[in-house]
């Protein structure tokens, strides 16, 4: 059978919580091989959904362990021991604070940064995001400091939200004030980048030769760029600094690649392109992310299910209007029914992903044991555009640092960034400050 056909066929028939069949036989996961799930290998994962959620069907009525699972979260019910619902967190920098409209752009921009984005067309200024800070600190241990996945490409023509650059709505992860981390939206390219070094079908010798050639290219261009840099004015130099940063990062990767054991991931896992069905697309990207984690290609993952303000329709749910449009439901029953369905659909995809975190077993441990994972949105209620009381799930045991299984309520206006700080601390990453964070979030 044609391999690509079989995998498509397989995905189509896949139930909510099944892992891809080839995953079970991956090398590196056997007890005899190296153990990528040793306790120190904590992972940080962020999942983002746009346009908020319908909070009445998200927030449980009682606190503690014995809460009744709300309708939207029902697909996650079977994993209730593995996650907590955090209520009351606020991303203040997503609020206008004098900048006027643009809640969607700000919501995505501030979610992992806690920084107020600069509101201009054509120029961007934000701040490093929590995941990229983690990548900078612990990413050197793996081939890829972080993996940034998106299921919607960046902005096309025109503005994205009320005078904000499109970069804000379509990126969660920021390397620094002006550079969003590269977001990969094509599953085939994710596969090739992670597991084939960007090249297809080469043996060890060809690979060693290629790495040697690459090193020589990098030596040349680094020297060249430094020479040019001397003569540039400040604004141009910033651009060339981005270039030099990329060169150095790749140099480091090549150094690591030489010691690295090349994990054989079978060709049958190679996706063809972007599936037409959005659910299939989300699951495929999720599967690739799981594969990256379990083969330890990276320990930091950010996953943007759709760009903030996304107006995609959900025909598989029989929803013809756009998500963003519906989210402004003005309490109309039919629209609320639709928005709930979309929210729950996203949670189903989450459950599929979480199921795989649990299934990845190794000597009594699972990926779930070493994960700190956040699922949430920078907007609470899409109809009101408020940025307090954000919908946030905290998933995983964080190598024993997290106590999942509860509904935890925080005081009003507790900064979302305190959660980021707490998770960074869990990774052993100490930062002096992060956006508007005030300290480590308790009770997690």
């Amino acid at each position, binding site marked *: 059978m044609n391999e690509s056909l079989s995998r498509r066929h397989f995905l189509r028939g896949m139930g909510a919580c099944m892992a891809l069949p080839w995953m079970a036989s991956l090398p590196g996961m056997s007890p005899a091989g190296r153990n990528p799930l040793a306790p120190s290998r904590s992972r940080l994962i962020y999942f983002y959904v746009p346009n908020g959620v319908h909070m009445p069907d998200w927030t449980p009525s009682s606190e503690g362990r014995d809460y009744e699972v709300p309708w939207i979260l029902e697909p996650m019910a079977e994993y209730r021991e593995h996650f907590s619902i955090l209520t009351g967190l606020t991303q203040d920098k997503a609020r206008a604070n004098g900048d006027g409209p643009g809640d969607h752009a700000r919501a995505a921009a501030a979610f992992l940064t806690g920084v107020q984005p600069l509101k201009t*067309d054509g120029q961007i200024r934000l701040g490093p995001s929590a995941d990229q800070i983690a990548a900078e600190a612990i990413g050197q241990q793996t081939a890829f400091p972080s993996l940034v996945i998106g299921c919607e490409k960046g902005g096309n023509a025109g503005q994205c939200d009320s005078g904000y650059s499109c970069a804000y709505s379509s990126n969660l992860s920021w390397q620094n004030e002006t550079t969003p981390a590269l977001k990969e939206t*094509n599953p085939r390219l994710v596969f090739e980048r992670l597991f084939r070094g960007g090249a297809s079908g080469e043996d060890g010798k060809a690979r060693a030769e290629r790495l040697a050639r690459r090193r020589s290219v990098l030596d040349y261009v680094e020297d060249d760029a430094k020479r040019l840099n001397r003569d540039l004015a400040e604004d141009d130099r910033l651009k060339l600094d981005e270039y030099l940063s*990329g060169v150095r990062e790749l140099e480091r990767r090549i150094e690591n690649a030489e010691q690295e054991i090349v994990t054989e991931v079978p060709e049958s896992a190679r996706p063809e392109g972007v599936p037409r069905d959005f659910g299939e697309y989300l699951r495929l990207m999720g599967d690739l992310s799981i594969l990256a984690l379990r083969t330890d290609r990276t320990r930091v993952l950010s996953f943007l299910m759709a760009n903030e303000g996304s107006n995609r329709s959900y025909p598989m749910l029989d929803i013809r209007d756009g998500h963003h449009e519906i989210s402004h439901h003005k309490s109309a029953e039919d629209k609320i029914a639709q928005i709930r369905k979309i929210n729950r659909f996203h949670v189903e995809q989450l459950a599929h992903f979480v199921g795989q975190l649990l299934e990845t077993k190794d000597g009594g441990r699972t990926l779930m044991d070493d994960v700190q994972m956040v699922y949430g949105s920078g907007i609470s209620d899409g109809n009101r555009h408020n940025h307090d009381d954000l919908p946030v799930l905290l998933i995983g045991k964080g190598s024993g640092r997290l106590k999942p299984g509860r509904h935890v309520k925080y005081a009003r206006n507790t900064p979302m960034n305190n959660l980021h700080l707490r998770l960074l601390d869990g990774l052993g990453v100490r930062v002096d400050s992060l956006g508007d964070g005030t300290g480590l979030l308790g009770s997690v």
Partner: protein
Amino acid sequence: MPRWSHLRALAALTSAAIIPLILRPTGPDFERDVVPFLKKHCLECHEGPEAEEGFDLSAHLDEATARAAFDDWDYLRERVLDGEMPPRSRPRPGGAEVESFLAWIDEAHGPVDLRFRPLDPGRPVLRRLNAREYANTVRALTGVEFAAEEFFPADAVGFGFDHIGASLSLPDALFEKYLQAAEQVADQAVVRWQDADAAPRHFGASDLEGGNDRNGAARGLYTRSATSANLHLRHPGTYTVTIEAYGQQAGPEPCKMALSINRRIVENFVVEETREAPGKFTASVPLEAGKLQLSAGFVNDYYVKDEGDRNLFVQSISIAGPSDPPQPTAFQADLLGRHPESLGKKRLESILSDLMERAWRRPVSRAEVKRLEKSLPKDSGLAAQLHQALVTVLVTPRFLFRFEADEALLDAEREQAIFSSFAGERPLREQVRALDDWELATRLAYFLTSAPPDAILRARAAAGHLTAGSSDATATEVLCAEVDRLLQTPASRSFVRNFAGQWLQLRNLDRIAIDTERFPEWNLALREAMKLESYLLFEAVLREDRDVRELLDADFTFLNQELAEHYGIEEVQGAEHRRVSLASDQRAGLLGHASVLTITSNPARTSPVKRGKWILENLLGAPPPPPPADAGSLDESKLVSASSLREQLAEHRARPDCAVCHDAMDPLGLGLENFGPIGNWREQDQGGAIDSSGVLPDGSSFAGATELRALLRDDPAFVRTLSERLLIYALGRGLERSDRATIQGVLAGLRPDQPTLRGILHGIVESPAFRLRRTEP
């Protein structure tokens, strides 16, 4: 006489400085529109001897004084227009207040007086090639088609375009992608064939994988299984594969063997031979380069106890070829041909110099060539060196970015001549330099073809014609002639697609969500047909030197059968678009195009607000400010009919802070209500008759789309807005205050009765913004 040397008498086009006609309330009035504004927003800080910045506005409360002080008011206009004043910390003036205030200044002071304005050409930030430019640049250099838009992430959009230097960032992982892309391009552009590659490769039993090792003599296959040779093939081509094998025969038929390439069976053999006299089985197979698994499989296992056991034994697999050794690519052959072997030791240097000049789009020094040469592997053969050089060059900053120097590159005399051709009586700002020929050629080529300079343009640059002129033409004449020439090349289609696709937001059609249950006729072919219609109209207006305002009311369009049927126009057959004269004006101009009407709709219904906003933003350059924070959005789903939509919008406008913008947006959008969500014509919506009449803020009224179009066409803001967008597109940066003078110059150069796109393009490339550069940020 150069256009910039003096102020021309004002043409009708330039008189409308900022505010579109249709947005102007009845004639501006000083006492009503200006005095209250100054008192409310300015005087608190700018009054009396202690005024901020020494800018005392209290004297200007008198109209005669205000009218006499051009400079102060021009300054004031720009600060308010840019939103710098009042400062952000103060309450913002409402949109209507600002508009009336600016309208008075426009009326009283007219356009910028260049005599008081130092010439400032602005400064584009270092621009990385975007994905489209990258693909075109690689193709021009090597002939390789690289799917850059698929391979690279989407380019960030700024000021409406995806090639703005300040917006295009370069994340770490993107650099890695550039290197991967360079390797892939070089693999296709340079064939690295060495004679040693032709040597056959032999895999004996101990080299094979799979089956049972028979003391290194053979691999025994006792069940339905296979044994394989794994190798890496450097070159594609037709190879001869030979398998040495024999069978232990039993049962009704002889052994059968299958040859598989990467697990796909390509040939079947009957193996009648036995151990005493093994057989050789050969097949000629086309193979791709890369990882290769050659397998010999046993396909008819047979075992019956006490009767017989059939098994297959494979002694070796070998591969020879390719029978058709790869030839150098056209790119390679061309380079080698132009730098023949007779150059001896200098050959490599000569080749590299050629390659680098093309890739960097300017001459290179010998030292730079030598540095590249030093980085290449020694003794690996010319093809391997060329491959490595190409990979390197394709990731150098000077390939990936469009460098413009901050130090002078022209000699002082020539630079001075260019300056004085612009300045005349106008002062020149300090820290300005004139671009050299190579920089100009690069700007020109990427502007009009999204690609590097072609051979003719390079020859012009090498001869200095773009800065000094040729024997029979001035520099500006040469530049304009090059514009005309480039517009005739097929590459100029990139300009049409990239400019019009973004200006009109036609690209957004690719991502639009349509309710296909309601519109089963919607499909990819129809979508592409819609887009193509608008591109072709733009192209016709461009190439036929039509009045640009025909974009809004052309009496012809371009349809194929599918789109014509969508429009209810008969007698257009086939999938190809062709020019169609329009019998009625229903579909005249862009506002009758399904493309524009669809991108401004919601998935299942029209949105007059979106349409109105689109017109204000893209056709009139007057984007409405974002709605107040508590405005909420119109619940269009509650509307059962078009008339109730009209009513609800009217209700909405009763709120003064909404009315400011919606008084303009809503009527514009409602005027197009006869067009449904995918541009389908309709007389009724949900049973209600459609009323597409309206009144605009300036008091002009229209009965429907046709009259609305005429109003927009006659508004000078349209040509001005188009010129501004073209200038942004040409420079790759947002416009600054100083660019108003450039726009004014461009508009002044147009024929008032027949403004053309070519006229605007000429005006832009002649302008100081295009030919000079500020050397400090």
